[in-house]
């Protein structure tokens, strides 16, 4: 009798804890930065925004209205809700989701020259990072080259953002990985592709033969394989 009671007690306790455990991460907010925040995290934030050309003020570690505007600009440019508050999604897009305040100073250096196609370059780099990080460098350039080949093709939209955000075109757009902040390699790969390097010989498609279930793709003759991706026209 006492034994079953204990068991019931235990069961009840476990159930209650489980339910609460589901609730806590939903309601609890991760560390956010907003107007009034101060410290090293704000400094890191300002440094990143400045390097990417979103912020022109001083890196003083104080989240003021200038920083808020820069954050909103960044959020708008990266498909996030422009609320001026740096929450988990924005932190992730900034590449600051590790939580530590240091360690993030080695970020990108390629994308902030203020030329007219910076946005395109950065968007392309994000696609490369989402789709092909972990692939050999040539494979990353090849993914960027496929996007650019599509831009030039009559069968696809004729702009980089049109091609990348075309309905159903890239999985990383659907699952949000496109909003991860790209590493230096991805930016460099996007840049090399925009400067003309096309390792694919004009391909318009690629897939991962190990994971793809798309019959139409699998039926096409493969032109070349780089890393995990098979490319075709």
């Amino acid at each position: 009798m006492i034994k079953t009671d204990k068991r019931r007690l235990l069961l009840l306790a476990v159930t209650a804890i489980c339910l609460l455990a589901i609730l806590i991460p939903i309601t609890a907010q991760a560390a956010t930065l907003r107007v009034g925040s101060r410290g090293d995290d704000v400094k890191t934030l300002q440094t990143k925004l400045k390097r990417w050309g979103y912020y022109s003020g001083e890196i003083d570690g104080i989240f003021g209205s200038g920083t808020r505007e820069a954050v909103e600009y960044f959020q708008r440019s990266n498909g996030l809700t422009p609320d001026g508050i740096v929450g988990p999604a924005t932190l992730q897009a900034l590449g600051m989701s590790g939580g530590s305040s240091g360690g993030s100073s080695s970020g990108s250096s390629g994308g902030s020259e203020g030329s007219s196609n910076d946005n395109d370059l950065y968007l392309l780099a994000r696609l490369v990072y989402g789709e092909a990080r972990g692939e050999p460098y040539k494979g990353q350039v090849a993914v960027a080259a496929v996007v650019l080949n599509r831009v030039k093709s009559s069968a696809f939209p004729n702009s980089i953002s049109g091609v990348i955000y075309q309905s159903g075109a890239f999985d990383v757009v659907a699952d949000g990985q496109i909003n991860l902040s790209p590493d230096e390699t991805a930016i460099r790969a996007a840049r090399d592709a925009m400067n003309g390097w096309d390792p694919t010989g004009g391909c318009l498609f690629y897939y991962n033969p190990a994971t793809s279930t798309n019959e139409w793709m699998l039926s096409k003759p493969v032109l070349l394989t780089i890393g995990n991706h098979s490319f075709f026209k």
Partner: protein
Amino acid sequence: MEEKTKNILRNYVLPGVLVLALVLVGWWGLEQRALAADYKNITESMYRRAYGDLSDSLYDMESTLAKLLAVNSPAQRVLLLDELWRLSGGAVSSMSQIPSAFPDTEEVNRFVVRLGDYAHSLTKRTISGDTLSQEDLDTLKGLRESCRSLAQRTAQRLEEGDIPLESLEADAYYSQTQDPAGTGDNAQGEEGILEFPTLIYDGPFSESAEKLEPKGLTGQDITEEEARAIAEGITGCSLQSNGLVEGSIPAYDFSYAGEDGSWAEIEITRQGGAILWYMKPASGNAEGKPEDSEARRYRNAALQKLRELGYENMQATYAQYYGGAALINFAATQGDVILYSDLVKVWVDRETLEVIGIDARNYLFSHVERALPEATLPPEEAEAKIAPQLNIESRALALIPITPETERLCYEFKCTLEGDSYIIYINAETGAEEQVFRIIDSEDGTLVI
């Protein structure tokens, strides 16, 4: 006492916590459901809007084409052709937003893109004084028919009601074989009901431009082993073969990956054994524009490599600096004329001055000995065609690509206006102002747009 606490805990506190947790989870679930429904509605409305915009654009295109068949003056024709070009741009943008995946939208997208491209080429022809031939008029008539049936098909999509999110995955709307409009005249098509007229014209998206064959390759086909010898001579390392890539220029692909993380990638064309492209990493990370003397050293290193590879008359046109490398564009010259289509890009390592990248695709596509026309217009007269507010800084002769299949001999004027730099091309035979570029001097080089 102990028993009593246990009882209170068991009978009141724990069930209370459980009920509270359940209520919270339930409330949260409802919130989430409402939120998901909102998102679903917003997304579906955007899909509806895309279909709506698309069918509007198509109906407008149809009516513009109809008007085009009715007008006679070049001025009206140009206005209407320009309207077609604008509408096609809008339609292409809507096309990319409708929830249909690639193979289904391929033909429709091609149709809409090429219609705009074709209209634009007719604009250029009309402006230069051409009249439309009977053939052009027949084509326009055919385009009008296609626009009408496509617009109906698209509008019908909206009338059919729901556009579920799932249609993104499995939809084959435009490539279906039945004939929903019941017009019947296209029903004999094998692939689908929508059949589009073939457009023969010269523009960036035309069928002929997309099927252009490389002109610059000469010589016999080589074997993979011969290609490997050439590639190893250039890279200086022992390479792994990745086979023949049958791209727009068939080439043998080789790569090298060192244990220290160094790598090299190279492709050698099957015909003639030329470098199609070659890449290896830079040793440094230098960014930004160098001193002039430094830039000259990069240029000379690149030129020397080009000469070694058999590229004789090359002229540097512009440069960018990023990621430890200088990327310099070289165009071929013939006599004193710059051939802008015949482009070779060379990456030079800023620390070692070694050539670490070559992209000869453009050159191999277009380089042949040109039959250059005579520059019949005297340079002074060409200069007089330049807008008076511009300061002319230099002048040269250049053959520039106007469309994928036509090039024109032009005077190239580098000019400035209120701190901005421009390049203006004046046709060296007719005096027409053919092309305008704006030059942007940025931190990392000169950008021409």
